[in-house]
């Protein structure tokens, strides 16, 4: 039987101090009107100003070596920053993916030139990345991608299309998974490679896909003979799948898989407190118990990642349970507070409710669907 224990992490006094500093900074920025609180803001809230301000604080790429613009802080310090950003619902989508996975990808597999070129800009909050995995016919079955890269003099020519690309209209680059040798049914995960594609390059067309709310969130990215120089290959040719899977561990276990709807819960608890609604609070606190437990798991995974351990099973568990919890927040709150969810309402709770309900279905899809995650978990425990 697989051991399911995760490390217990207790915050130190310094870390708690640090958390306070971050929180104070965010509260005062919100006070000043730099941003407003929204649900799911790590995915759908864009503010270059906020990203740059966080960069200036040294809170992007903060675990990275100083020579690349990092602060050499611990993964736990970074965890604290991301949690505080989520809890207050700050618009951080612009730099989120670069900080979370593109940067770490370069550190692990990138060349010296790539690290020097990209990491300092990312850490300043000025250089944004999108994730180019999904295609129209390749969602859960990612290994079936058809976007191809062919070797040419000095680089590669990329042809194909990506879809559901969050924020491509804001991003400078897209880490793009391409086929570099023909599909081989005996080795489904072979023959793929990762490229850094400059989204301003010739041959790129970005077309918005309207989100169900009408917002412009994700995109189709068409690549027509896009030239990618050799120095923009990430890691090894043919090793794209393994490298991509390593990214997923970061993607699946973070606090953003638990806290997307936290602003709604916070607002609700405030309201119930005002109403002196003890039975309502009791129900809200049941969610808090789930949240607290998951948070322990998620921090445990962060600790393991720092120690270089394999966390794919644990990360999948966090995402499965965490995203279900994120959805449960809206479903529980609506029974505790009478609301007419509406994005145009004057009442904050109605707006946060509308955002949580409308974005909710995506929580258990993006970054690997619940069904696929459960397959991974089942394989993991059976192994």
């Amino acid at each position, binding site marked *: 039987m697989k051991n399911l224990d995760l490390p217990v992490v207790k915050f130190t006094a310094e870390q708690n101090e640090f958390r306070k500093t971050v929180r104070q900074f965010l509260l005062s920025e919100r006070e000043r009107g730099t941003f407003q609180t929204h649900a799911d803001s790590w995915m759908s809230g864009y503010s270059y100003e906020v990203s740059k301000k966080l960069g200036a604080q040294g809170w992007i790429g903060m675990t990275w070596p100083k020579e690349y613009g990092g602060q050499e802080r611990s993964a736990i310090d970074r965890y604290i920053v991301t949690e505080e950003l989520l809890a207050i619902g700050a618009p951080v989508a612009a730099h989120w993916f670069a900080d979370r996975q593109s940067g770490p990808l370069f550190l692990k597999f990138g060349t010296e030139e790539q690290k020097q070129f990209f990491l300092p800009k990312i850490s300043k909050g000025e250089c944004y990345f999108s994730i180019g995995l999904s295609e129209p016919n390749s969602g*859960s079955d990612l290994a079936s991608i058809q976007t191809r890269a062919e070797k040419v003099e000095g680089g590669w020519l990329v042809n194909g299309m990506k879809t559901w690309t969050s924020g491509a209209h804001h991003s400078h680059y897209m880490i793009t998974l391409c086929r570099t040798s023909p599909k081989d049914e005996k080795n489904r995960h072979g023959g793929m490679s990762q490229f850094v594609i400059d989204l301003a390059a010739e041959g790129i067309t970005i077309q918005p896909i*309207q*989100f169900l709310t009408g917002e412009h969130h994700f995109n189709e990215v068409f690549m027509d003979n896009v030239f990618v120089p050799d120095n923009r290959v990430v890691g090894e040719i043919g090793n794209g799948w393994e490298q991509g899977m390593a990214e997923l561990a970061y993607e699946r276990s973070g606090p953003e898989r638990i806290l997307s709807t936290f602003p709604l819960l916070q607002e609700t608890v405030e309201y119930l407190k005002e109403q002196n609604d003890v039975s309502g609070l009791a129900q809200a606190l049941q969610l808090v118990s789930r949240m607290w437990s998951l948070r322990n798991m998620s921090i445990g995974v962060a600790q393991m990642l720092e120690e270089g351990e394999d966390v794919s099973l644990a990360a999948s568990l966090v995402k499965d349970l965490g995203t279900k919890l994120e959805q449960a927040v809206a479903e529980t709150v*609506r029974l505790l507070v009478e609301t*007419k*969810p*509406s994005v145009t309402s004057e009442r904050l709770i109605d707006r946060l409710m509308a955002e949580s309900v409308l974005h909710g279905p995506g929580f258990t899809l993006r970054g690997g*669907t619940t069904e696929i995650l459960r397959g991974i978990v089942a394989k993991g425990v059976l192994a």
Partner: protein
Amino acid sequence: MSEMLEYIVDATNKILKKNVTKELIDASEQGEWSGKLWNTLVEAGLVSIGIDEELNGTEGDAIDAFAVLRLAGKYAAPVPIFETIIAGWLLADQQVETTYQPTSFIMDWESDLTGPEFVLKQVPWGRHVSQVVYIGNVNGRAKLILLPTADAEVKQNQNIAGEPLDDLHFRSIDMEALTQFEVEKEDLAEKVLNIGVLGKSAMMAGAMEQVLELSVFYANERQQFGRPIGKFQAVQHHLAALSSETAVVLAALNYAVASFEDGTIKEELPLAKMKISEAAGAVAGIAHQLHGAIGMTHEHQLHQVTRRLWAWREDFGNEMHWAKKLAKEYVDQNELTLWDFITEEKRGNVHAGSII
């Protein structure tokens, strides 16, 4: 199903299927008035169903009307047909002839309208209706009044489905000159709530049928790992859950509607709305999961129905609202065991109360 009902269902289905397109719903959510659809429905007699011929109605009974609303929900018809039918019934009770004008209604016993200036908050379809039936206190007396909206100033707002939920600001209303009737507060409140709950429940049931249809279609069409996703057991479980939720919702709805029609409706009302509101969220969630990212796009049709489920489940009391009412009723009749409560024919009525 009576022959008449079968005919109505068939005809309504044809009309809505032909006329309610994705584009029409989009345009409505952008603020346009679906005038052509409205006229078609008027001509087919569907907005005046359940009203006697001598009051210019189409005849038919509540069962027919709820069947029409179920289809209106299924196709997400972007017009105030629910509001107009119900407002029409309330007016017909006062012997007011129906006019086929888009009409909204609102019931509020908390405030007191004294005129000449007041604001009606969150009026469904406010910007598009030409009159509002207001049920509530007027100068301290329980009344039903008919307010023409021509001069009202509209502050736009909408629910999560993009349906108008506007504030109407009336500035100089001559209260005396309005069409108005004194009413028996308890009776009318109960009637409005009964038909409101059943009408919305019927619409939700229809919307769930549509969600199921879309899901079955997509499970067959979408291929991953070299086969339709409907071949994966996890997806099959989703389809099974959607089917069972829809079936149980219809069982709840049909029983409640039959009880309304034979005049025996009591706890059937809250029990039905609780089940249907609860199922609405479950069904919407499962369908989105099954559709993957495509279901999260504006281009796909799914959200036009799921957003309506998310909006409508809160209308006329969600499951918690009714559970509390039911709980109170149960406490008040504390000599009954739970089994008595479930099976007893002589239970009291769950008082609707004043808030919808």
